[in-house]
């Protein structure tokens, strides 16, 4: 039954119509909850004793960083599925997510850089967390340019899937960099294994921002995959009739 469901949903046509139905609900729900999270965090969350009001950048920086890494994990899983089972839709996912991932990683880097000025007194530091995030950004750009450099799309799909899997090594490095090395970047405030080091009054809006931003990015990813399906399957009868 699972295999049947998997095969059916992995069909570009089914994915296109199902994602079209899901998109408006996910998109607007995420937008509304993100606005609630941002207003709560920026206007109502208490001031930080050490960083003052500059810490409010956390409500944009942390969701962007979390999404940047999550999107790469999505790319790695899709690459694996494509290389092993040759699922066409997985290749479309790898291609579609690359541009969104690059934009969100850029957002994480730029917001972190601006936050660095009032907090550390510098825009940039070759710190382990920041440098590994910059490598993630370069990886995304590498995937986009490698795909664009091929005329043969099948070959391009194979090469970027292999490159994406090789680049996955950077994800645990980003995650663990603040623990492995003594870095300027602070350690994670929220972990699965211990109590959050951030006050609850600041944590609630942050959690809303993280999950609603992730929801919004997934909605945009659905749109991007729909576009990739339209481009790649444009000669199919069902596309000509939409």
């Amino acid at each position: 039954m699972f295999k049947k469901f998997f095969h059916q949903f992995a069909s570009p046509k089914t994915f296109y119509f199902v994602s079209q139905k899901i998109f408006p609900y996910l998109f607007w729900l995420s937008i509304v909850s993100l606005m609630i999270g941002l207003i709560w965090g920026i206007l109502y969350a208490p001031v930080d004793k050490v960083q003052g009001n500059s810490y409010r950048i956390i409500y944009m920086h942390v969701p962007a960083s979390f999404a940047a890494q999550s999107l790469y994990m999505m790319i790695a899983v899709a690459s694996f599925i494509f290389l092993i089972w040759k699922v066409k839709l997985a290749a479309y996912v790898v291609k579609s997510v690359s541009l969104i991932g690059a934009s969100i990683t850029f957002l994480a880097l730029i917001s972190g850089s601006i936050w660095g000025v009032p907090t550390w007194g510098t825009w940039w530091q070759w710190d382990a967390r920041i440098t590994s995030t910059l490598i993630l950004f370069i990886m995304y750009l590498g995937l986009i340019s490698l795909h664009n450099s091929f005329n043969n799309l099948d070959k391009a799909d194979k090469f970027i899937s292999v490159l994406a899997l090789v680049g996955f090594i950077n994800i645990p490095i980003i995650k663990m960099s603040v623990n492995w090395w003594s870095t300027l970047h602070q350690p994670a405030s929220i972990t699965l294994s211990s109590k959050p080091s951030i006050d609850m009054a600041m944590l609630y809006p942050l959690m809303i921002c993280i999950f609603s931003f992730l929801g919004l990015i997934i909605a945009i990813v659905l749109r991007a995959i729909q576009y990739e399906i339209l481009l790649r399957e444009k000669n199919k009868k069902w596309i000509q009739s939409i």
Partner: protein
Amino acid sequence: MINMQFESLSSLLYMNGHGIYVWVVLIIFLMVITGLSLFYKIKIKNFKKDNNEIN
């Protein structure tokens, strides 16, 4: 109880000297998500328009 942290619009904008950083990041944040949302919406719209013209 959740309280508004700023007494006036000017104190909200200024944020004790940190307002410039927070508001610039918020503007970039909103620009990126708006840009990404519109980018694919327009691309799909254009594709469908071209598709209908061909057929």
